[in-house]
């Protein structure tokens, strides 16, 4: 074995060009596969970083419309009281909070969690004390737990931080504990606060409110997913009976935590793994063809070895050793490429898993095993066919210099030809898939978002503390008005407005509504619509057309709210009772709530019948907007005047500029800081970027498919070129004879081109058939085009035909330049 290995090494160093091409070809295939497997591994295979992760469940609510809803906090408290299948279950919600540090105020991500949260995840504090049930009660002393990173950032890792105070949203919180450095949460959070003391401020106490709260739970030993689901179904039925309005049609969904975090990525990751597997297959075929050609060139050596008594096994072993050595070097280079590929492709990991994988290496035992396995299999795959055929070389012919080819089939077909046909077919499958993805994205981006995103800057400004709102209910409104006034003075700015839920900000909020002129629908059948709270110029800034009626005037009256009135749903219900609010509705809402009628002047009730919220009167109809992604149909939407509400909505500022918006960002931020110096500005993005980001996942997948398709095309072209060039090289004498006998150069050209076409055309036919089967798997990733989109098939086939034609042309041209005298002299 050692002599074989030594000889194989010598062979590779002897032909550096061959070796480099073969190694790089395999490295691309192995590297891409390993990188993608690393991502699949990080998403689906690697254990979550918690003890006994298989017992962790994610529990959400669901109804007919939403299969995965946030959990109503009062419902959660009932679950805790009634359930017997979990050792514990905990609610969590993440928010940005304003933290006062030594230098200035900054916004940090905070997790509001219930008492059992760290117990459920199996996390012990590294310093200080654990979160106790008494911390998670209304009115409890404010305490905070810092992550290790937060502790390092805010206290430079000083153990004396325990017991010290930090100002969060203007209130002093005592640091109670520091979490261990290896703790990873599946949301971004630098600190954790008990949820119960903040439940009022976050409007969590209303059973109807499903406000971003999620539940994680740990199964008791012996319980299963099925038993937990059955037990929670019983609780859901009880709650429906107890709270028929708020819980009408609401069930409970229990699923493994891993599934909740990762399942959305399953199909796209597996499809990409399939695509990259095809690339590796094509790479293998390419190298196999190169080795086949080389084995023909080495037939005399093989024949000598045979004559000296080498058995077929020994010959195959020698040649497979060479291929395994090439694969090993390719695997090593591929491993390096995969490190880069993993970093590049990590965005394929679902966003909930990102905080967990962010600090993890892409490599673990699974990936190393995969890399080793794929390297050995690759070496065997591309090495065995050439080795087998080389071992069949007839030493008589080889030692007599008889020109020969490696035939597999009768007629003119050779092994190398078959490999090229297969390669062309596989490449076409990937090209068709890439073409489908491109056309899908084209269709998607051709859809109007309903807003004009050009020249619009969007950002958030941390609002005044909730405590200020308690003193003066309209303090937030005045804060917003000051900012709007200051920003409006900028010469770069055309108009500016605040909105509670900008399109593509993933901040939509829906509310139950019903017409006041019709009987109230029964619970569970109440319609709902997305609610927006916007300032006067919002429609102008966002480019949403007012189709009928009018927009807001800014003169909509504010209700009287006495100082020191706690702001809650009850307050709003009391203050606004009997008040009629001007409302603008989207065209979709107008059609769905008043089909065939004129909605202007019509009224509808906000919220459940028992909530006693105000009535809205329609004053205008605006165009539909898409709120989250372009591929989702617009939902019914209504808009209320923001200045009529004191509630601390998480609002965005949108600024339409006169010129290039990125040039105006600094000026806008400066203007805001001038009137709100202690209020951090964050989430600064151009509206066009928000729209583009909504399909960035699709675009990224499309780019990967395009890259894999392009790589496959390149490899196929190299394969075709290699076979034809080798063919021309071996037929130089024959071509010389033809030319000596009077063949014209164009006829020689045609002979070679025809040979190329006999490889390409069957490959295309097979590829089209293969694509017909394979692209059906892509259907879930497509938008606006079917898996059998004819244009995509034609485009893929044409691209392949042109590129392959070019690959044929070079050796064909070389054939026409054969000097007959020289060719006939050389035997």
């Amino acid at each position: 074995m050692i002599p074989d290995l030594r000889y194989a090494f010598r062979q590779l160093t002897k032909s550096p060009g061959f070796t480099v091409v073969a190694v790089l070809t395999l490295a691309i295939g192995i590297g891409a596969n390993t990188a993608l497997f690393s991502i699949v591994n990080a998403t689906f295979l690697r254990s979550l970083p918690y003890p006994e992760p298989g017992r962790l469940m994610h529990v959400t609510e669901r109804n007919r419309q939403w299969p995965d809803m946030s959990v109503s906090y009062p419902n959660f408290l009932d679950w805790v009281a009634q359930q017997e299948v979990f050792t514990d279950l905990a609610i969590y919600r993440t928010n940005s909070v304003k933290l006062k540090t030594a230098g200035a105020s900054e916004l940090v991500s905070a997790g509001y969690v219930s008492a059992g949260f760290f117990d459920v995840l199996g996390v012990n504090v590294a310093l200080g004390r654990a979160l106790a049930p008494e911390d998670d009660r209304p009115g409890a002393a404010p305490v905070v737990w810092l992550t290790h990173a937060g502790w390092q950032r805010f206290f430079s890792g000083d153990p004396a931080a325990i017991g010290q105070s930090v100002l969060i949203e203007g209130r002093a919180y005592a640091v109670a504990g520091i979490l261990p450095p290896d703790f990873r949460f599946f949301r971004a959070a630098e600190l954790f606060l008990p949820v119960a003391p903040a439940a009022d401020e976050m409007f969590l106490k209303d059973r109807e409110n499903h406000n971003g709260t999620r539940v994680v739970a740990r199964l008791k030993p012996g319980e299963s997913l099925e038993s937990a689901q059955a037990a929670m179904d019983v609780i859901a039925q009880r709650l429906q009976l107890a709270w028929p309005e708020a819980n009408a049609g609401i069930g409970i969904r229990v699923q493994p935590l891993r599934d909740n975090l990762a399942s959305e990525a399953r199909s796209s990751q597996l499809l990409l793994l399939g695509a990259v597997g095809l690339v590796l297959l094509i790479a293998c075929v390419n190298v196999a063809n190169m080795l086949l050609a080389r084995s023909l060139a080495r037939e005399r050596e093989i024949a000598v070895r045979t004559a000296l008594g080498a058995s077929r096994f020994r010959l195959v072993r020698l040649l497979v050793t060479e291929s395994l050595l090439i694969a090993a070097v390719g695997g090593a280079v591929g491993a390096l490429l995969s490190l880069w590929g993993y970093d590049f492709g990590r965005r394929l990991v679902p966003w909930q898993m990102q905080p967990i994988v962010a600090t993890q290496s892409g490599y673990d035992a699974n990936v190393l095993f995969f890399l080793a396995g794929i390297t050995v299999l690759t070496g065997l795959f591309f090495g065995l066919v050439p080795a087998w055929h080389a071992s069949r070389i007839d030493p008589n012919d080889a030692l007599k210099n008889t020109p020969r080819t490696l035939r597999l089939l009768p007629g003119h077909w050779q092994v190398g030809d078959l490999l090229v046909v297969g390669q062309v077919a596989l490449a076409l499958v990937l090209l068709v898939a890439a073409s489908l993805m491109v056309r899908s994205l084209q269709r998607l981006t051709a859809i109007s978002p309903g807003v004009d995103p050009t020249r619009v800057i969007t950002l958030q400004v941390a609002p005044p503390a909730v405590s200020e709102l308690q003193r003066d209910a309209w303090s937030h409104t005045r804060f917003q008005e000051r900012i709007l006034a200051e920003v409006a003075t900028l010469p770069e700015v055309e108009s500016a407005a605040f909105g509670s839920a900008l399109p593509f900000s993933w901040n939509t909020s829906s509310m139950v509504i019903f017409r006041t002129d019709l009987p109230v629908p029964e619970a569970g059948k109440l319609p709902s619509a997305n609610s927006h709270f916007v300032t006067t110029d919002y429609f102008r800034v966002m480019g949403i057309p007012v189709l009928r009626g009018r927009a807001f005037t800014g003169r909509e009256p504010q209700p009287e709210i006495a100082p020191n009135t706690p702001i809650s749903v009850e307050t709003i219900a009391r203050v606004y009772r009997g008040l009629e609010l001007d409302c603008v509705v989207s065209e979709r809402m107008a059609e769905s709530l008043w089909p065939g009628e004129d909605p202007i002047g019509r009224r509808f009730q906000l919220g459940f019948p028992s909530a006693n919220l105000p009535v809205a009167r329609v004053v205008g109809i605006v165009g539909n907007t898409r709120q989250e992604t372009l591929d989702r149909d617009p939902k019914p939407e209504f808009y209320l005047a923001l200045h009529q509400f004191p509630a601390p909505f998480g609002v965005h500022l949108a600024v339409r500029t006169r010129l290039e918006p990125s040039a105006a960002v600094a000026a806008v931020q400066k203007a805001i800081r001038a009137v709100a110096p202690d209020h951090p500005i964050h989430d600064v993005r151009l509206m066009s970027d928000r729209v583009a980001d909504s399909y960035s996942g699709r675009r990224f997948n499309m780019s990967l498919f395009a890259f894999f398709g392009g790589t496959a095309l390149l490899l196929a072209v190299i394969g075709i070129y290699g076979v034809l060039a080798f063919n021309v090289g071996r037929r130089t004498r024959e071509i010389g004879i033809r030319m000596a006998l009077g063949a014209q150069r164009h006829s020689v050209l045609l002979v070679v081109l025809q040979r190329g076409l006999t490889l390409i055309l069957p490959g295309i036919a097979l590829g089209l058939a293969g694509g017909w089967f394979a692209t059906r798997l892509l259907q879930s990733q497509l938008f606006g085009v079917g898996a059998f989109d004819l244009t995509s098939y034609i485009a893929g086939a044409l691209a392949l035909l042109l590129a392959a034609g070019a690959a044929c042309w070079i050796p064909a041209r070389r054939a026409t330049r054969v000097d007959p005298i020289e060719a006939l002299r050389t035997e």
Partner: protein
Amino acid sequence: MSDSLIKLEGVTKVFLTDEVETHALSGIHMEIRKGEYVSIAGPSGCGKSTLLSILGLLDSPTDGTYVLNGRPVQGLSLPERARIRNREIGFIFQSFNLIGDLTVFENVELPLTYRGMPAAERKAAALEALEKVGMGHRAKHLPSQLSGGQQQRVAVARALAGKPAVLLADEPTGNLDSKNGDAVMQLLSELHQGGATIVMVTHDARFARNADRTIHIFDGRVVQEQVESDPTRT
């Protein structure tokens, strides 16, 4: 005969090419004794190389029997033929057929590795063979660094290293100038005098005379046998 090494009886070889039968050998009868030096002569295309291929178990006869060292070998499997080739036959080719990527020593050692011989024994046997042909001092060189004559000496050493029952030489001087050709023929004569059995294909009558006996082939048949010590026909 107890000292018979090679015995062919009615050996024929027919090639089928595009439904056309070509009779390369037609009923060859031949016997070669141990320690004999036989040359096979004849014009191009007469079948002498085909005969040598059959003798070397690189090819099998279409019909007839071939007994090597007392054992019929015409119907053996490929692995068994490879094993016999490795142990009982040494090849010397016209174009040397050294493997360019292996050193002189490794080339000579190569057939011994196929035999599964331990490394120390291989080394001793290869060096001994190289010393025998006067090439021990070039053991670490590559074939490309040697002259044609030296390369053929190395090829002879490779054939000798495994101590085969017979050396088969196919036009061993065909790619050499007359001086190197003479030297190689002298080497074969010395080996023969040392007891080696040699079968050599040549169409150079000058070299054929070095053999004890010359078998003339024409059109796939033995047409004449000539014992060099007795110039009269037998």
